[in-house]
């Protein structure tokens, strides 16, 4: 299949369709409104569902309702909108419903700005909503990778019966790059007769299904949380993704960076290499689960004297890096969070 030049936001919408998801509910917000604009035209062409909800809060429950009825479904938003959706996402995690949420991050807190940012790292990986739950979080660094992660996200959400988040910054959404949609990543939804409220007749069953997150009995609630925990542990074992760059050199500094920021770092590493300075990089592609072992191993070599967390946020990922490195090496932070993406020149400095 030949490549097409697409804006990240449009490519994300198309990737969902190509992976077999034909249901989309959303509320407009910069810098990702192009997804809704694209799908408003595209979904009718493929017989899919497009609906602009009245708020992000409502949208998160449209997603919940559709997912609980057994449909493959997704939405896209940006930071403040994700905060509003966090309520519904918490309910979905508790009720074990799969869906894909895309956050094309902008600066915060509050209304912040509309420029690229990675300020929602904590929100996505630690505490998206109330309660004891996690999302599987993937962070693309190019439009092509956003497409592939989108297409992988649906089967992963179904495998774990848990929401999956694609965490991109504004540039991933706004940038145009050549993309192709691998046919091999098109999947059929997993059979959900055991839990989805698809209608007794639909699944020819006498046993009704109930989708809920309410467990008034303390033991039942504890058991549900233990079940969720076991899924997150399984994610840690099976879903870690990362990319290593220049780690076969005798690097003195190990960078950890993700998304657009990691590409800036790659250019900086190349330019330093030309000057005879070796720097390695681990780029987490999944932020939860975090590539802890890989970072620890890369930091624990004798020629590495310092680890640097380079992020478009004020020192969020650094906490996961410190946890991974376990004090074996000092961990420093460099970042910017006003909307400008730090340039390779600044990273070098």
């Amino acid at each position: 299949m030949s490549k097409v030049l697409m804006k990240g936001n449009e490519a994300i919408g198309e990737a969902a369709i190509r992976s077999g998801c034909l249901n989309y509910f959303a509320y407009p917000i910069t810098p990702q409104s192009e997804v809704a604009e694209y799908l408003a035209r595209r979904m009718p062409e493929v017989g899919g569902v497009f609906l602009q909800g009245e708020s992000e809060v409502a949208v998160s429950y449209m997603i919940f309702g559709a997912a609980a009825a057994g449909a493959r479904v997704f939405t896209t938003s940006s930071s403040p909108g994700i905060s509003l959706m966090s309520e519904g996402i918490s309910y979905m995690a508790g009720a074990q419903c799969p869906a894909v949420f895309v956050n094309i991050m902008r600066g915060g807190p509050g209304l912040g700005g509309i420029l690229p940012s990675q300020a929602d790292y904590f929100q996505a990986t630690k505490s998206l909503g109330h309660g004891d739950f996690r999302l599987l979080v993937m962070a693309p660094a190019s439009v092509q990778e956003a497409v592939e992660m989108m297409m992988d996200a649906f089967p992963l959400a179904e495998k774990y019966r848990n929401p999956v988040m694609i965490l991109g910054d504004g540039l991933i959404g706004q940038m145009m790059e050549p993309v192709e949609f691998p046919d091999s990543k098109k999947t059929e939804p997993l059979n959900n007769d055991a839990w989805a409220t698809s209608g007794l007749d639909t699944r020819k069953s006498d046993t009704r299904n109930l989708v809920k997150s309410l467990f008034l009995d303390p033991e039942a609630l504890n058991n549900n949380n233990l079940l969720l925990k076991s899924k997150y542990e399984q994610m840690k074992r099976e879903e870690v993704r990362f990319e290593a760059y220049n780690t076969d050199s005798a690097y003195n500094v190990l960078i950890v960076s993700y998304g657009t920021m990691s590409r800036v770092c790659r250019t900086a590493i190349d330019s330093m290499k030309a000057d005879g300075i070796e720097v390695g990089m681990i780029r987490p592609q999944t932020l939860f689960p975090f590539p802890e072992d890989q970072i620890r191993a890369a930091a624990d070599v004798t020629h590495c004297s310092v680890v640097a967390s380079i992020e478009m946020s004020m020192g969020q990922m650094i906490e996961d890096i410190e946890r991974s490195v376990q004090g074996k090496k000092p961990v420093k932070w460099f970042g910017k969070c006003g909307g400008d993406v730090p340039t390779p020149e600044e990273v070098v400095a």
Partner: protein
Amino acid sequence: MQNEVQFAGFGGQGIMLIGKILAHAAMEEGFEVSWVPSYGPEMRGGTAYCTVVISDQPIGSPVIKNPRHLVAMNRPSLEKFAPAVQKGGIIFINGSLISVNSGRDDVDELVVPVVEMAKELGNVKTANIIALAAFVARSGVVGIEALKGSIKEEFAQKQKLIPMNMQAVDAGIQAAKKD
């Protein structure tokens, strides 16, 4: 080998479009490309700029501090971005709206009165295509045939606009030679 081209001007001058056309042409020639826009609440009249990165290697940073070339369609853009252009690059200046030069003697400056030329062709909206063609002819970042193919694809839904835009490309090529 990597080329970066910054396109800048007023919103509504078709800045984003010519960046996209160049990126598309480069992709068709087999290059890696990234098209990076400025984006904001202003849809019309504000400053608009985008950067196109063209490389024979996977592109690292799509954020470029010092682009190799600049296509400036209005004076504020020229004044803001000309100092950052790499030595030896091309600075294209829309001579119809910009009465000054870049103030750089280490770049190749190309001044074309694209608005007047577009009016002569009968449609002022083709000014951006003339500018793009002149820049491409001078810089050779992509071939003219790839450029024409990319324009035809962009206007595939508006076939009747294609002949005029092809004339605009030819006019741009001529203007690049005359300088």
